[in-house]
């Protein structure tokens, strides 16, 4: 019998284990709930209800959020019904007497005009059993303006309800202010991203046009091709699309850039591009590669006799794409690069700090640039892009 599997024994053992687990769970649960006074319990439950409501008010006063929050606010106030209005109409109604929903906006008119809490005792109803006889309405204020109202309906209004409604309206005001703050922060981040974005170097524009000019007489066809490349390049670099693009698009633009640079440098610039086709559809921040290539070309050829080599590789690393830009130029002092990446301004390597900041902002601090360099030993800049990043999506198809 040893070594074989005895089904009934196993079933009984498993059942016993489950039973023990269940008992332990029940015991621990009971212990957690004990020894709390009634007052504490009321406080906790109110705080808990408020925190539930605040989650729905995270976007400010919206119809959807107000609809969900109204239930919890009503529970705090203990009235018969609750109406939430904004400046233009009713957002949510919760509780008895749904037929009064249409009138709620009118009830709050006085509060909107004066900005003070008001008691409305003129509610008439054809239904003798309707519990709504009076209401207390309080303003929701944001930045000194009445942006909405909270109206609590009840059978018989008390000063306590008036006070409570005012306090709840005040609390909602705070939530709305927080939502406004969050929106402002998002806007600030977007503005920062836009500011970090395209920075075409003026030198490049000047040099490209000069190089094209030199071909206009000797080789008009090539000059025309170059002008078209230049037009495409500037359209891409100055476009008003989203913050992301595919690696294929980005590399296509790098290619245009390199064609223009080669028009200027001719045989002095040798370029190798090794791209695994698997990573081409990966989403990358817009203009993440081109500034690095521009740096490599500039430093790879500066003070150099003979040909400068620039190698661009993109490899598939499972969950990541790894992109590297390497030149065999003068290199740089690692200390200086560190200062640039730390945010010190340098006219020499505008792109490096910019790209690094944007990568970190989008993907987190693990995904900044890695620079390997030493004076006289060339430079290699590497970075990784996670193939899947919930925060980062290109607006597909926008090619304007």
């Amino acid at each position, binding site marked *: 019998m040893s070594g074989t*599997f005895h*089904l009934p024994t196993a079933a009984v053992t498993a059942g016993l284990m489950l039973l023990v687990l269940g008992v332990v769970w029940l015991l621990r649960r009971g212990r957690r709930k004990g020894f709390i006074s009634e007052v504490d319990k009321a406080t906790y439950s109110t705080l808990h209800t408020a925190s539930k409501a605040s989650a729905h008010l995270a976007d400010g006063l919206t119809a959807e959020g107000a609809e969900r929050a109204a239930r919890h606010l009503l529970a705090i106030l203990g009235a018969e019904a609750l109406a939430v209005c904004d400046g233009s109409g009713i957002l949510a109604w919760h509780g008895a007497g749904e037929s009064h929903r249409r009138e709620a906006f009118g009830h709050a008119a006085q509060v909107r005009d004066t900005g003070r809490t008001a008691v409305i005792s003129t509610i008439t109803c054809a239904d003798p059993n309707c519990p709504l006889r009076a209401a207390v309405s309080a303003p929701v204020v944001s930045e000194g303006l009445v942006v909405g109202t909270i109206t609590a309906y009840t059978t018989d209004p008390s000063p306590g309800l008036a006070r409570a409604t005012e306090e709840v309206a005040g609390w909602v005001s705070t939530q709305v202010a927080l939502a406004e703050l969050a929106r402002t922060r998002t806007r600030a981040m977007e503005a920062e991203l836009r500011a970090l974005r395209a920075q075409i170097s003026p030198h490049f524009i000047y040099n490209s046009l000069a190089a094209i000019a030199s071909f206009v007489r000797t080789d008009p066809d090539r000059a025309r091709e170059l002008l078209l490349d230049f037009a495409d390049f500037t359209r891409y670099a100055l476009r*008003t*699309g*989203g913050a992301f693009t595919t690696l*294929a698009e980005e*590399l*296509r633009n790098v*290619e245009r850039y390199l064609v223009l640079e080669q028009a200027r440098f001719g045989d002095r610039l*040798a*370029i*190798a*591009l*090794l*791209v*695994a*086709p*698997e990573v*081409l*559809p990966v*989403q990358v921040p817009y203009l993440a590669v081109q500034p690095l290539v521009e740096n490599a070309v500039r430093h790879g050829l500066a003070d150099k006799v003979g040909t400068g080599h620039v190698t661009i*590789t993109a*490899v*598939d*690393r*499972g*969950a990541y794409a790894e992109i590297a830009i390497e030149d065999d130029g003068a290199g740089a002092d690692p200390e200086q690069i560190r200062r640039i990446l730390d945010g010190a301004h340098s006219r020499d390597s505008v792109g490096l700090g910019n790209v690094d900041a944007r990568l970190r902002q989008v993907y987190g601090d693990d995904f900044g640039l890695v620079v390997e360099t030493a004076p006289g030993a060339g430079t290699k800049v590497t970075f990784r892009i996670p*193939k*899947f990043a*919930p925060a980062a*999506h290109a*607006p*597909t*198809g*926008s*090619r*304007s």
Partner: protein
Amino acid sequence: MNSLLSAVSVAVVCLITLLVGGLGLRLSRATSDFYVAGRTVSPRLNASAIGGEYLSAASFLGVAGLIYDRGVDMLWLPVGYTVGYLVLLVVVAAPMRRSGAYTLPDFAEARLGSRRIRLASSVLVVGIGWLYLIPQFHGASLTLTLVTGAPDWLGGLIVMVVIGLAVGAGGMRSITFVQAVQYWLKLTALAIPAFVLLAIWFRQGAPAPVTTTAWASPFAAGGVDSHPLYWTWSTLIALCLGTMGLPHVLVRFYTNPDGIGARRTTVTVIALLGFFYLLPPVYAVLGRGYLPTLPASVRSDSIVLQLPATVLPGLAGQILTAMLAGGAFAAFLSTASGLAMSVTGVLDQELLRPGLARATGGDASEIGGFRVSAVLAVIIPYLLSRVTAPLGLATTVGLAFTVAAATFAPLLMLGVWWRGLSRWGAAAGLATGAGGAIGAMALSIVGGPYDGWLGALLSAPAMWCVPLAALVTVVVSVATPGSIPSGTARIMVRLHTPERVALARSRLRD
């Protein structure tokens, strides 16, 4: 002599796989005319790569073995393997491509915004991957033992080491071209011997195969199972719906430049697979003619490998056998490497790295973690393949398909097409599907074999498991509308808007 030829061909296939995996990118061109558009992977190449990765030991050896053993009902297996791609094409290919998710856990997170469901999906991906790897090791052991007389454990070990090295060195999955070549290699290795054997068969006056009525008539009682019709339907459902839940299949679709490319790829894959699956029945029928009974110790999975030597004694037969053995090893290596790569990625990213980071305070090296994952990804299924009795290659692969169909198929289909899917619903569906499929499997392996309906329901659980998981998902989702992710509408627009349509949203943002 025979064993020498076969050993050489196996060694050559292994060596090529290692070399290409190790050298990797260096094979690709380094020129200055690097126009990017010309370098995107064409749907045709990508389809060949998918075929190369998809056609595993089960297809190369197992299908022929099952048809030989159990009869014409088994002809539905290749149909199911192929139709799975049709379902994938119609239901999820393009939306998945647009979702931006690279793996099944990615999709779960993108669609439901929940780390826990992501974790559950990761565990399932690893489980399905391991389940699928086991028959590859079994197949390798069987092939090597049969053609060279090597000990039983050696074949699986060779595949494990080669795959572990290739994946640990940086991964050969990235090389679409290599997998594409593998497809044509497998097709050639299976087709040439098939045509030679067919020619000989005709010249010998086309002797009729030796069969029984149960073998030759569809759904005959006493054939496969006590309920052959149920078994066939259930297996078909598992294969049709399981394809979309296999971890190594989905990854390939992101190599396509857009959703249209993804659809075109799928159509080509169906054609390539359909052509390939014409061949295993040829071996099965010829096997019935030339080898009506197998010795008790030899499994029917080996019928493909035994046939050439029986029909064509001498050097010619040995060459054909060596060819088949090489092709079989190509099948094990290509499928196993794709699977091992997927499993390694998930293990590393979801399960191992967070643990390592916690244990060492963030000091663990990334490469180290990846290599540990690669070793785990291959060594665990190898050990499992040593302790489990071989069930038959196609049967074990069928189990992996069943688990995939019962878990990921409802999640993907409802996730792509139903905006009411809630987090709780998805979690409950995954748990039900996994519990049902794995539970039934474990019961029938541990306690079985059972007779009658119980046996049929447990041995082919997809028929009840998949609808049950879908039903639970829907019911729980309807019951918990509060846990429907708030961004659902936005994600749905993303999933279903063709790439060419410039959404107004994307312009408003600036």
